[in-house]
């Protein structure tokens, strides 16, 4: 039985208990609030999880465009946008999966190319247990959120 899926998917991941690692889920939550008021119903679906995992490949099925959101260390800018392409990425533990590997899983399981996927990486600094995201990270999050809203409004994919 197939269900009608929203053409746009925003998927953020991270541990909400580990400081700036919460940026991905936080952005998705805030985007969902705004989208409810500003986008047609059923246009956008928002999902979060602790980690990216193989079964999330199934969440991509039937989408027009997908936006991945994660915290990132080592960024020189508040956020960075890039196109994600399928790639065979080696795994070491079940506790993490790269977005490129997820798209490769999609390609191999579905026997077709995944929808256009964009990665929104938000600058992160601190990952202490039990802490909320820092002020700098939240400021960067606000900028990234504005970009994500534009991504959600546009009919065509934004190139990195």
């Amino acid at each position: 039985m197939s269900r009608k899926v929203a053409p746009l998917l925003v998927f953020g991941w991270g541990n909400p208990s580990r400081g700036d690692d919460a940026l991905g889920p936080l952005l998705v939550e805030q985007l969902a609030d705004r989208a409810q008021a500003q986008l047609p119903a059923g246009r956008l679906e928002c999902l979060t999880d602790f980690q990216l995992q193989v079964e999330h490949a199934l969440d991509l099925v039937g989408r027009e465009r997908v936006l991945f959101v994660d915290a990132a260390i080592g960024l020189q800018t508040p956020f960075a946008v890039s196109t994600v392409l399928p790639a065979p990425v080696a795994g070491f533990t079940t506790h993490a999966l790269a977005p490129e590997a997820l798209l490769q899983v999609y390609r191999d399981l579905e026997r077709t190319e995944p929808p256009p996927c964009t990665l929104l990486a938000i600058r992160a600094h601190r990952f202490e247990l039990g802490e909320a995201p820092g002020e700098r990270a939240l400021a960067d999050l606000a900028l990234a959120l504005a970009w994500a809203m534009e991504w959600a409004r546009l009919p065509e994919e934004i190139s990195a």
Partner: protein
Amino acid sequence: MTEPTRPLETAADPQGQRRIVIDPVSRVEGHGKVTLLLDDDNRIQQVRLHIVEFRGFEQFIVGRPYWEVPVMVQRLCGICPVSHHLAATKALDRVVGGWPVPEAADQIRRLMHHGQIVQSHALHFFHLSSPDLLFGFDADVAQRNIVGVAMAHPEAARQGVMLRKFGQEVIRITAGKRVHGTGSVPGGMNRAVDPAERDVLRAQLPQVLAWAEAAVDLAERLHTGLPTHLAGFAETPAAMMSLVGPGGAMEFYDGTLRVREADGRIAVDGFEDQRYRELIGEGVKPWTYMKFPYRLTLGPEAGWYRVGPLARLQNCDFIPTPRAEARRQAFVAAHGGRPVHAVLATHWARMIELLHGVEVVADLLDDPAILGGPLIATGERQRSGVGIIEAPRGTLIHEYEVGDDDLVTRCNLIVSTTHNNQAMNEAVRSVALQYLDGQTITEPLLNHIEVAIRAYDPCLSCATHALGQMPLAVTLRNARGEVLDHVHRSSRGDTVRGTRPHSAEAAL
């Protein structure tokens, strides 16, 4: 005759040895690293596996209201949050005087827990382990993941994903959400299973059972097809500990503790979970935050043991579901009835457990008790409680003390990876003894060490998930601290050689 347990630290003078550090950095902090200490002849003398796991989490819990704990502890791990959710609530059942919980709550929790076993085991086998067995340890890294499996065995890869999805749906209809469910509460459950949701899953069972059987077939075929020189890969004789149910049945949710010696003799049986501290001590070492559990009667050096699928399968006398029991008997027969300590046999055992998990889910979905009835038990308040379950990777212990103000005053957690701490060290040591020589960090060495660790799939529980980290880094130092060799393995599998040591080595 019992195999002697081997002390982890065999080096008489660790200060005078070279060091190799293997640092599988998953994310920022929740990483592990392996230190191989060499002697002057470049031979392995000692292994130290560092897993920075849930450092600080116990203190994080202290001072919190007890009713928050079952939800909070799910943030320990994004892979098996349900295991922590249930272990915590089982411990707090005692605190609120709600143990035993009503039948409906007990059955719903069991359903949730076996869904967890199914989803985690499916992920482990299809994502991490079967590629090693399918392609060999020295295959290109691009092949040694699910992508490689998908290319070579397209249906198996899909079945792995669908099995995991099924397990997660079981969790969702019992816990309320796929992630961070709130269904289990001290004293019972706060929700029953919706009949319509139950029916959706029940309709999938014939297919799911067939997939689970096929998974055991694949694991068995891969294991029995291993070349002779790999059949005993990383073999580490060890005592085995797990919960067992009545009559010695395999039991994941609630039972008594049993310890079996490495030669198969039962050493401890029927040990009540609330008294675990009379059975297990927790050693510490200056070079790691992880504790080293040991049997008190044998002491820290000789008292280590293994938990997890390979231990559980051999610790029980039988599996109380017919398909998995037949597979257990085949496993035992294939090894001539002798205890099995070869690390790669873990994968076969894990798939038998997955099949058992699906069978239990099938039975419970047919049980009308999961649809309703009394869900909460109350009774006389207690100051403390212990909750022990068998999580996918092995025995998981939660213990709490709670004050009159409802705030947690003490928390002690022993997770599966901690129980297996020394067993993992021994497995890596066994591999390194065979494959490391000289001053070069080779790809085959890294691959073999990864395979040994991967069999345990150590929980990098509090790992954060920011982008930008190298998954693997290796540093070789001489006795004077000089870097002899250093290798980064990128997330794409590229290997970059340099001379910059990994900062984690400063902890040595």
